[in-house]
């Protein structure tokens, strides 16, 4: 009890040092805890991000087979489980890792007998069973099929086949017999199909649409597909064994069931499954991207682990160094008691125990306190930075690290106290100081050698100032800071000593005293080492953080293209741009972008409204050097000069005159694009024989853009005809209404050109002129090449903005694929280092040109998007949905920033920032405390000076100058070292799990952003220093001298 009382008395007597030791020891233990605990939490967050943010196919195993439909899927699932389960460690683990398997069987029944246009290829109707289908479909009529031969049909099928709930479907000779319709279902939304792993593969197998087999073949014939008839698996299991079908089993990972420790086994098991020879020989094909996913997550972990370790070690080393410095002061403060203990006959071990008992007990207290603090910090960081819901556990490794930190602290205390403990009793009370101002070189030598050797190793290893990227570069600021600190701590006393002569002859007493105290205080400038090193780290960390945040913002802006991007599907037959135009009449909040992604070279065509796109797309500095408004004009130098036959037109006519030298039997055909067509493409109407007078044809489904007027002959011409005709008076009629002229129709030559109906193998010859508001067309017609009057509505090649990742030159033609998947010749008129929406592979053209060039055909690889300005996403979305637009997905720039910010390098950067800021504050606090302690030890000297008529203000100035110089010098040296480190090494430090090819990243630290937090920290330290200085001088009172203590 008395020992404990003595301990508390000692703590009270040496409160400043005791608090310092406790604080630093807590930070050391917290640093030890924080690293592993944060790493574990961040790993979980990265894993969960990796699992949740992937499209379903990236986290699923898809096994397929074919054969007799009887128990085809269940057999496949069993075979799959037999291979997978043992590698995963049993069924229980497999059940935890994966969602319940979705077993699907696919057969076919004949299509309903429906009249289709000639040449249309009508596909069979899929008959499908899918595990738990009724839980995933919305029934619009009837009930879920529960027994063999019962089916659900889609509303579209019901309409097409004229069948309703309660009706039957004859499957002819397929063997399925008659199917009984129990209900109708509504198609899942595009978003459900894209994002719910249940529907993996269903979009193409079960539902009609662009993904359905054959629908994408723009060169093929028209295709008619139907939605699946869903039936219970009993329909297949009880079918004749001669019926063949396909089965698919989809095993999708359950993100919430996967833990960090599962990844190795999971990857190996899936690898075994996909390569299993037995399954292959049984005609079972297994595909999965899970190994890719796990490799990606593991790689991201790797980008986190190394920096976390490096950062934690740096903070730990700094804390130990601080502890050593403070413990040295503490040991000195206790030196007389230690000497007394020796006089009382304490042995060596007992003296050591007595001498370090206070710091040892403080360290013991700091262990749980630090571990809990580190845990709390981890929880705080996890809440702010990591994926919502990520647990922050106090792992055994974290506790062990805290214990190790504490043991390291104990070692630092022992080393710090060794001089005091070994000092002879007589030396303790000698009035003459033992080593006066002499300062050992051993510690400095070790630190400097270590720092320089480390820097040399990093330089030789290519981690600095080279293209190599690696987290070891994070050691540079610490090492550089340390090297600068050691040198600076030697320079400061030397610089002050250089002022001795001057301050002795000039200036006030304050400066006179201050420079001498700084220069001569034994070990005093060691605080400069810690201060400089920690501020180097802090400055670098702040610079790195802001540079990374800036680059994350740049990448997010470039990748998303706009503040908000929706992938949408317009209602059939409606132009998305028109709907968006109604939703945003100003054209400043939303714009349509058609994206074609089916190229083999990875380029992406972005078809845009140039003016709107230039306004709404996100342009960060360095993306594009020119004026975006000017760019918009270059992309669409003139609006497409289409000749449009209006909506509701039912007939078209024109006048032909002066026909000369036409082959016998020549006919005229008018070609056009029906804008309302769901599939786009050209359609034609015959104007009948070519003759002088009015040529007319019936129309439907307009508005239509005229693309061509061709002349045809039933025969291959034996000779060449050079003839001509004058065309005029293009007009349309709606129903029985009056004929309305089409403007500009055939009155101007602009946009019209003489050519041939089919360009392949035919030389176009002929000319067009426009005398007297009519079009005079002359041709040369021979062989099988029919002449045509082509509508040329757009420039060729189409002007484009190209990413520098695609081409480095403007002026030459760049061939890509248009919205129809066909070749589109473009001419880059400008280059962008980063194209918004497709940074390194985007090629941007006018949407109007692209649609015309594609004859309004949209390939299955073309995706319609609506880009929105900041803050406009919600309102635009609601308006679009109200207009019938289906929104499949929405991505905001903030979403991408959030994801990028949760990657390993970004998480490590924040940890570095937090650790370095803590280190800077701690080091600054320790420096202030050390200066305060030194001042307190001098209070009797100050009292004597006061008594000797030295003005109090001079003493105050002396202490303030000392604080300012020591702190200022250390901080400035540290900040400079940090900035230098940032300049030379930031480009080597990874900022992303996978470095983006574009946009170009910026590594210049933003001056203001870096300065503000530093100024705040410095201001806090300055306030503490001033407070401490004033307290020191206030404590110096001449009355102290009366007690004879001086």
């Amino acid at each position: 009890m008395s020992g404990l009382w003595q301990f508390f008395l000692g703590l009270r007597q040496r409160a400043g040092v005791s608090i310092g030791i406790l604080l630093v020891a807590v930070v050391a233990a917290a640093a030890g805890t924080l690293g592993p605990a944060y790493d574990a939490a961040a790993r979980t967050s990265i894993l969960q991000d990796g699992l949740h943010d992937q499209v379903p196919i990236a986290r699923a195993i898809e096994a397929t087979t074919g054969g007799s439909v009887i128990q085809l899927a269940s057999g496949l699932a069993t075979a799959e489980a037999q291979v997978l389960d043992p590698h995963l460690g049993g069924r229980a683990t497999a059940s935890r890792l994966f969602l319940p398997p979705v077993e699907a069987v696919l057969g076919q029944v004949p299509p309903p007998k429906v009249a289709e246009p000639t040449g249309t290829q009508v596909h069979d109707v899929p008959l499908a069973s899918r595990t738990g289908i009724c839980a995933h479909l919305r029934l619009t009529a009837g009930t879920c099929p529960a027994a063999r031969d019962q089916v659900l049909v889609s509303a579209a099928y019901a309409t097409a086949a004229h069948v309703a709930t309660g009706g039957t479907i004859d499957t002819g000779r397929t063997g399925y017999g008659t199917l009984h319709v129990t209900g109708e279902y509504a198609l899942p939304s595009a978003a459900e199909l894209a994002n719910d792993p249940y529907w993996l593969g269903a979009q193409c197998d079960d539902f009609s649409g662009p993904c359905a087999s054959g629908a994408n073949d723009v060169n093929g014939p028209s295709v008619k597909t139907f939605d699946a008839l869903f039936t219970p698996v009993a329909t297949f299991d009880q079918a004749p064994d001669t019926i063949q079908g396909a089965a698919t089993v989809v095993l999708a990972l359950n993100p919430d069931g996967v833990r960090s420790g599962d990844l190795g086994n999971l990857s190996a098991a899936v690898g075994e499954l996909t390569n299993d020879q037995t399954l292959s020989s049984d005609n079972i094909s297994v595909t999965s991207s899970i190994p890719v996913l796990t490799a990606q997550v593991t790689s991201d972990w790797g980008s986190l682990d190394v920096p976390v370790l490096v950062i934690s070690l740096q903070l730990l080393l700094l804390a130990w160094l601080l502890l050593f410095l403070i413990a040295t002061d503490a040991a000195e403060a206790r030196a007389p008691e230690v000497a007394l203990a020796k006089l009382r006959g304490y042995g060596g071990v007992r003296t050591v125990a007595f001498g370090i008992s206070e710091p040892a007990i403080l360290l013991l207290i700091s262990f749980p306190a630090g571990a809990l603090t580190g845990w709390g910090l981890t929880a705080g960081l996890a809440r702010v930075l990591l994926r919502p819901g990520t647990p922050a556990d106090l792992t055994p490794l974290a506790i062990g690290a805290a214990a190790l930190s504490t043991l390291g602290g104990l070692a630092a205390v022992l080393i710090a106290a060794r001089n005091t403990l070994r000092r002879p009793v007589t030396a303790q009370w000698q009035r003459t100081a033992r080593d006066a101002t002499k300062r050992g070189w051993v510690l400095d030598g070790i630190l400097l050698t270590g720092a320089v050797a480390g820097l040399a190793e990093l330089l030789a290893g290519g981690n600095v100032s080279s293209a190599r990227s690696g987290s070891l570069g994070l050691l540079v600021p610490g090492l550089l800071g340390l090297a600068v600190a050691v040198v600076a701590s030697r320079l400061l006393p030397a610089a002050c000593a250089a002022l001795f002569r001057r301050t002795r002859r000039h200036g006030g007493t304050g400066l006179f005293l201050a420079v001498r105290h700084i220069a001569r205080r034994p070990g005093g400038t060691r605080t400069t080492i810690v201060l400089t090193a920690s501020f180097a780290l802090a400055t670098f960390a702040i610079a790195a953080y802001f540079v990374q945040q800036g680059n994350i913002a740049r990448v997010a802006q470039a990748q998303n293209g706009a503040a908000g991007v929706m992938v949408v599907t317009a209602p059939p037959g409606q132009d998305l741009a028109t709907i968006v135009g109604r939703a945003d009449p100003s054209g400043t909040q939303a714009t349509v972008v058609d994206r074609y992604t089916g190229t083999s070279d990875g380029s992406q065509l972005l078809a845009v409204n140039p003016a709107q796109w230039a306004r709404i797309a996100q342009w960060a500095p360095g993306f594009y050097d020119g004026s975006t408004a000017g760019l918009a004009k270059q992309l669409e130098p003139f609006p497409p000069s289409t000749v449009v036959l209006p909506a509701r037109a039912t007939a078209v006519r024109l006048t032909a005159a002066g026909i000369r030298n036409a082959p016998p039997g020549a006919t005229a055909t008018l070609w056009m694009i029906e804008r309302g067509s769901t599939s786009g493409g050209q359609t034609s109407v015959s104007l009948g024989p070519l003759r002088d007078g009015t040529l007319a044809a019936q129309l439907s489904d307009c508005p239509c853009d005229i693309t061509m007027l061709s002349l045809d002959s039933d025969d291959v011409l034996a000779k060449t005809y050079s003839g001509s005709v004058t065309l005029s008076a293009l007009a349309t009629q709606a129903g029985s209404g009056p004929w309305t002229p089409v403007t500009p129709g055939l009155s101007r030559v602009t946009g019209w050109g003489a050519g041939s109906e089919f360009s392949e193998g035919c030389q176009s010859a002929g000319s067009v002129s426009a005398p007297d508001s009519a079009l005079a067309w002359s041709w040369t017609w021979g062989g099988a090449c029919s002449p045509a009057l082509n509508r040329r509505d757009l420039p060729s090649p189409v002007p484009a903005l190209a990413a520098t990742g695609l081409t480095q030159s403007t002026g030459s033609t760049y061939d890509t694929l248009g919205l129809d998947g066909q070749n589109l010749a473009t001419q880059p008129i400008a280059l962008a280092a980063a194209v918004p929406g497709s940074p390194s592979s985007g090629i941007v053209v006018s949407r109007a040109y692209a649609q015309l060039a594609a004859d309004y055909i949209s390939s299955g690889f073309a995706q319609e998007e609506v880009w929105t300005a900041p803050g406009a996403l919600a309102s635009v979305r609601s308006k679009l949905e109200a207009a019938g637009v289906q929104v499949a997905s929405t991505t905001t720039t903030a979403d991408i920033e959030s994801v990028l910010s949760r990657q390993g390098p970004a998480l490590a950067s924040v940890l570095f920032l937090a650790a370095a800021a803590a280190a800077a504050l701690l080091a600054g606090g320790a420096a202030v405390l050390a200066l305060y302690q030194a001042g307190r030890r001098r209070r009797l000297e100050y009292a004597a000076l006061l008594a000797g008529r030295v003005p109090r203000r001079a003493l105050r100035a002396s202490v303030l100058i000392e604080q300012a110089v020591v702190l200022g010098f250390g901080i400035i040296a540290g900040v400079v070292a940090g900035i230098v480190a940032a300049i030379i090494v930031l480009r080597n430090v990874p900022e992303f799990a996978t470095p983006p090819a574009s946009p170009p990243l910026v590594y210049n630290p933003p001056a203001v952003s870096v300065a503000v937090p530093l100024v705040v920290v410095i201001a806090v330290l300055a306030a503490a220093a001033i407070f401490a200085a004033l307290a020191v001088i206030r404590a110096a009172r001449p009355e102290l001298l009366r007690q004879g203590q001086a």
Partner: protein
Amino acid sequence: MTIDEARDVPLLEASGLRVERGGRVLFSAIDVTARPGDRIAVTGPSGTGKTSLLSVLAGLGAPAAGSVRRAGVAVTAGRLPDRTSAVLQGFGLVSLLTAAENVEIGLRSAGMPPRAAIAAANEALTDLGLGEHADHLVQELSGGQQQRVAVARALASRPQLLIADEPTAEQDAVTRELVLARMFAVAAGGGAIILATHDPEVSARCDQVVSLARHLPTHA
């Protein structure tokens, strides 16, 4: 004013002094008057309040009762009166200054120009046999040398009244004589010296002796 006339004006006049410490009366009803040329010794066993009495006389502390007047002016506690120097028991030196700097700082604070202060400091230290130690940090000097630095600092400002607390306690016989000679020179020059000492030889060389006896425990 002649010397005789000057002697009529006390350099220091303390009357009815009572000092307490920790509620215990150290001494009471002490009168001290120092006139030009006076050499006054304060003696008494340890703990009788010699240092406290000197502190009160030097203005470094306030008495519980009584008054101290320096050249007719009441002494303000917390500051040495003008033309008064003190050699404190703990010397009151700044450990990280050299011997010369310790002397200079006092002179500079008294308004002496820096160059003159340097010269005066060197002279004072040389007078006390510390010329070759002038540029040594005081914490590198022995206790006796540090004490002489303190004496040099006190003498360098050429005080009219010198108050010294056992100024020869750490001196050998030779340096003791040197120190005493320099200090008594203040009195010889028309000033006065009040010193506390345990050394009977030193007190024997003084004109007056204020002897403090151990008080019975009496609480104020």
